[in-house]
């Protein structure tokens, strides 16, 4: 299993990353090295081992259903690149065609 430049371009696109030609080549190499190492790990017999989803053995970390104060709208909108008094603003995501 090896990663092609095309795969890297696709993954970058999904993550909204713009890569230069050089970066793409660089990451393709690096990703392949990582996968080569994974191949090595794959030599181990793990058929009797449960897949690990979390490295710590904690579970059932809950919050009671009790209302906590929200932040003010003014503060909520403060960090936004664009907003009006009530809403966050983004360039139109659906064309009116």
């Amino acid at each position, binding site marked *: 299993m090896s990663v092609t430049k095309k795969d890297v371009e696709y993954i970058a696109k*999904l993550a*909204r990353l713009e890569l230069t030609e050089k970066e793409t080549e660089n990451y393709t190499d690096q990703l392949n090295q990582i996968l080569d190492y994974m191949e090595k790990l794959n030599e181990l017999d793990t058929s009797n081992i449960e897949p690990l*989803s*979390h490295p*710590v053995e*904690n*579970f*059932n*970390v*809950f*919050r*009671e*259903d*009790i*209302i*906590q*104060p*929200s*932040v003010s*709208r003014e503060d*909520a*909108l403060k*960090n936004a690149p*664009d907003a*009006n008094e*009530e*809403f*966050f*603003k*983004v*360039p*139109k*995501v*659906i064309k*009116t065609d």
Partner: protein
Amino acid sequence: MNQKYEAVIGLEVHVQLLTKTKTFCGCRNKFGSPPNTNVCPVCMGHPGILPVLNKKVVEFAVLLGLATNCEINKRSIFARKNYFYPDLPKGWQTSQFELPICEHGFIDIVKSDGLEKRLGITRIHMEEDAGKLIHDQGTDSLIDLNRCGTPLLEIVSEPDMRSAEEAYLYLVKLKQIVTYLGICDGNMEEGSLRCDANVSIRLKGEKKLGTKTEVKNMNSFRNVEKAIEAEIDRQIDIIEDGGKIIQQTLLWDADSGDVKPMRSKEESHDYRYFPEPDLMPVLVNDDWRKSISESLPELPEHRKKRFIDKYKLPEYDAELLTAEKPVADFYEAVLNTTDDFKSASNWIMGDVLKIINERKIKIEDFPVSPENIGRLINLINEGLISSKIAKEVFPVLLDENKDPRTIVEEKSLLQISDDSFIEEVVGNILGNNMDQVKQYLDGKEKVIGFLVGQVMRETKGKANPAAVNKILKEKLEAFR
């Protein structure tokens, strides 16, 4: 539908949970608040935030799982479903993928032909809702993040439905269950219950599945049925014309009554699910499961059966009264005041529901209290008013909601059971209608109906009909 084909339908239903707070933060979970007022760094997806799961969400999920005959997984985990869209500031939806909380359940429906059918549930998982985008303002899209992080349960059915009717009945049943459980208000118009349908067709007898399409944007129960019907017809037309079904997402257009393809750009999905590292696994042990199951309220099927057994109601009445929990609650509240089970049922199915539908109100907002409906029924049964007078009292009750006995007294509507008074009226009526008396004596006994009518008219409907009948007969016979 062309009889050569059968449809294969599966539904994905999202229900918004009636918790006080959101899934992973303490922000208020409330529909209709001013935009961006129920938000905090957690639900706005600021960097460095840590979600903490609302325990109630797990309990609601287990409740629904138990009510739909699911297995409750002892261990379930959350996953990130990654995609970019402005209503989802984190860049992923926190959901469940590999290990959902409930699996392998079912719902039973009864079709219009009376046949029962069991429809499988593949899984129920916990997830969060996205924010709301408003597109119709100028050159920008506006975002309200109040809904962001609202708890949802997604219920995925098996592809067990074979017609739009079955899909409709499944959805109605599911709504009934979530509203009885009190975990969702089931309002499709407001979006607290949403439904997408996967539809394919195949020749009858064929085992292989056809290519499926996904139909979205159906915002009422009837629209789900109509949209699926339209999509089945569309697919049959394509196949009959020698074409092929393309796997795609379609949007239902309620105005034109057909489905239209979504632009393909919006549906190229690659979610790259992976386990959510910030949320610990959820373990539901036997004790917890047991304590949740003890809080299970009576479910619609059981309540219907109880109405038939305990109140001796016909199946039709029981079905209608238990279709919606508040109506069933209202019925049983009436029974606190009267033990005439069938009359209570008749009043609710007739006069009460008629007003509810006319005024488009909820039964919770019905102006007459269940006690006063019960009292009205008792007045009839005690012979104090006739059922005809009761129909006159009812509109007054609607306006004033006071003890019907007071209304009856104020308006002097009390039934006249005083025999001597009735005898006098009957005597007068007979004296004025000797032709009819003659006919009666000649064997035309039907004429008695006319004479009863005359007496009732004279007494403005207040004479006790049983007494009138009895006295009339006696006096008529006395003429022989």
